[in-house]
């Protein structure tokens, strides 16, 4: 089932998500990109009701573009996060969007940042976070292994460990994942993690390193 993961490193942020489009017991496709590039320096990883997810992330993206056209200056990450929260909060008591969002961005003045916004519009700036069933494994793993001064390679390695753990322990584990990063160069796809035929390594040597 759905997993969205986010990590902030030294001067970049990583957002990863599974790429499965699932309905009930059926997997419709395994290359659904759930991490939207909002503008040149922003990523939005979203999970939730598929219709709401697509509609809402596009709505945010188009509004960011509109703002940029009108004012010739992009919205900062913090402002985007607050705008997103505002939209979810007003919708909450009318007809809510069932979408959980991890918003990552890079601003030249404040550096990389990551925001946690859930479908009831709880807003919080975080360093690491996750949504969905994957969060039960990822949050503890990230608490253990995360450092604020991680390099891109180290952060992606941490995300890989999370994906590995999901594949190993989650009954309904999704097959493929996508990893995107945002730094001063911009937001872009970094890698995809496709499921290989060999089952994930049993928790022997790797678990020992995690424990140490």
């Amino acid at each position, binding site marked *: 089932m759905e997993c969205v993961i986010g990590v902030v490193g030294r001067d970049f942020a990583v957002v990863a998500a599974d790429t499965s489009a699932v309905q009930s017991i059926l997997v419709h496709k395994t290359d659904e990109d759930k991490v939207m590039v909002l503008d040149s320096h922003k990523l939005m990883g979203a999970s939730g009701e598929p219709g709401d997810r697509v509609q809402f992330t596009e709505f945010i993206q188009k509004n960011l573009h509109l703002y940029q056209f009108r004012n010739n200056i992009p919205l900062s990450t913090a402002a985007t996060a607050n705008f997103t929260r505002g939209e979810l909060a007003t919708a909450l008591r009318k007809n809510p969007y069932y979408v959980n969002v991890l918003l990552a961005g890079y601003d030249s003045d404040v550096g990389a940042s990551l925001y946690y916004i859930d479908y009831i*519009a*709880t*807003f*919080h700036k*975080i360093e690491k*976070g996750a949504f969905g069933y994957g969060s039960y494994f990822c*949050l503890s793993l990230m608490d253990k292994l995360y450092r604020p001064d991680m390099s891109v390679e180290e952060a992606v390695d941490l995300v890989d460990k999370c994906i590995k753990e999901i594949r190993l322990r989650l009954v309904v584990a999704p097959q493929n994942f996508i990893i995107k990063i945002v730094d001063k160069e911009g937001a872009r796809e970094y890698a995809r993690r496709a499921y290989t035929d060999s089952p994930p390594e049993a928790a022997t040597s790797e678990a020992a390193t995690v424990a140490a």
Partner: protein
Amino acid sequence: MSIFEYNGSAVVAMVGKNCFAIASDRRLGVQLQTVATDFQRVFKIHDKLYIGLSGLATDAQTLYQRLVFRHKLYQLREERDMKPQTFASLVSALLYEKRFGPYFCQPVIAGLGEDNEPFICTMDCIGAKELAKDFVVSGTASESLYGACESMYKPNMEPEELFETISQALQSSVDRDCLSGWGGFVLLVTPTEVKECVIKGRMD
């Protein structure tokens, strides 16, 4: 499970001699899962007036934004800050406006009024004020906070002693509550200065 217990919270305010303190826990959870341990529930309205919002985190944030907005309008119109009593009535009115679809928050208001007279009060989610001379509590840890405050509180404490008392009361209460804790935030307000403090606590 109640929607008030969805995120978990503990807020307490105490009155001392010409001063007051307001404190809260730092956990943001989603039921039993802890999302963050640096969440803010106590907000500043002006230098001598603070509000703590326990309950559903999203409504605490929405309510805070609306209160700041209303207070700024008041400042522009009246060219002065709101008295704590006035502010409490504003919060009450804002909450009762949503009588049949409330904000799931229980506010704690603490401020210094005219002549630096401390004022504390709490409310239910639809704005029924409850004034107190000594201390007020709210959140998922409210039962244990009542016990701790009841036994630790003394009237007319000096700022230093008040700070120690509220911190100990908060800490011992949240340790008996699964949904709150993970560190604390204490604000001590005297007529001349404001002391903000993050206190360490059990992280389990």
